[in-house]
């Protein structure tokens, strides 16, 4: 029942997933909330600080501690994804194949190209256990901690496929 996946996701990865499945996700993910989405979509794709092809975006504004080496993620659960519905089609057109969040999103834009993974809202202390490292942060000065794009390395992040690429959704 549980599937292990590594980012970046391929089309085959995404089309092989069904709503209700548990996925353990490893690799690199990018946090983005309202302001980061606006900024990403305002830039020509060659000016983006990351490659969106096959990328997984995490709707999350973490609690972060500054360390001698850089940054440490203290707590990092998902934020309400519905706020990002208005940017969804634009983000998926860039080649993003996975969104992690909570509360669900519009189903239609995911069809045939991407999936929506849910993690439990509020369980930020648990999510942080799957985050191994902060690789980089973009636009921190301009957007502030919650809205910046944090580039995170995750290992076996336990997620549920809540909206699949075939129009199935777990939300009531």
């Amino acid at each position: 029942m549980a599937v292990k996946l590594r980012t970046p996701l391929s089309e085959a990865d995404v089309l092989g997933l069904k709503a209700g499945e548990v996925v353990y996700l490893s690799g690199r993910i990018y946090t983005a909330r309202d302001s980061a989405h606006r900024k990403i979509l305002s830039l020509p794709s060659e000016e983006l600080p990351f490659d969106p092809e096959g990328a997984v975006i995490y709707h999350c504004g973490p609690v972060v501690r500054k360390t001698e080496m850089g940054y440490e993620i203290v707590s990092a659960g998902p934020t309400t994804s519905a706020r990002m519905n208005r940017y969804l089609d634009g983000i998926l057109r860039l080649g993003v194949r996975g969104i992690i969040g909570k509360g669900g999103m519009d189903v239609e834009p995911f069809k045939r190209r991407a999936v929506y993974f849910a993690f439990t809202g509020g369980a930020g202390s648990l999510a942080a256990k799957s985050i191994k490292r902060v690789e980089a942060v973009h636009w921190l000065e301009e957007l502030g901690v919650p809205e910046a794009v944090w580039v995170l390395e995750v290992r076996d992040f336990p997620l549920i496929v809540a909206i699949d690429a075939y129009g199935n959704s777990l939300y009531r």
Partner: protein
Amino acid sequence: MLVDAIVEAIRLAVTRIPDDVVSALSEAHAREDNEVARFNLENILRAMEIGKDGLVPVCQDTGTVTFFVEAGVGSPFLGEVKGWLVEATKRATEEIPLRPNAVDVLIGRNSGNNTGKGVPVIHWELVQGDAIRIAVLPKGGGSENCSALAMLTPSEGWDGVKRFVVERVKECGGKPCPPVILGIGVGGGADYSLLLAKKALLRRVGERNPERRIAKIEEEVLEEINALGIGPMGMGGKTTALDVKIEVAHRHPASFPVALVFQCWANRRAFVEIKPDGGVEVWQ
């Protein structure tokens, strides 16, 4: 230092979920047979366990820091408390740490320390006595965004209150991080009903309004909401709300205000009491 005690209360609030909330969530887990709901509730139980040692905020949204202060008119510290609350908020942001959540509404700049114009939010009430009692309520944005106010007509009355609350819960689905706790304020005008609703969230889960007829309505609304099947995180299940708290005030003859404030399952709170001799007590 009395500021230390307030920082400790903020730490307690964001890292340790109160026992009554933990019990309610464990019971919800025990009666759930939906697999996805169990996945979410197990994550919740694990996240709370990690927070227990006081080092890690359970939810990354440590909220808008909100204080309810019952200030005894005989306290020698009346003039200093506000400064302490602001100072404690700044220190807590740095030391625990909290997520900086105070954003300038015009330029969109985050102040970086959870303080700014009007924040931390402080609600004052003067009371008899010489102690100052402070309730800390870190209020997350996801649940706050589902808040709603209805100015019902008196003829709609309590049936209208129930309809409004249940409809709003349905509309919000998984957004406020169910299983939620609902604070409902009825009467008193638009502003006061909202204040009552938010303050109601400080009551313990399972504690009923002492007025029997209101207690009965709390139970009825809770039952109706849990029959909706929205479930943990909106992905189906038996528990959508852990509790419903109603507080009332007299209303204007022409008005029947009802305010609804959602609190996510991470129903965080802590209290500090500052005695006139400078002694402090911190609890949940």
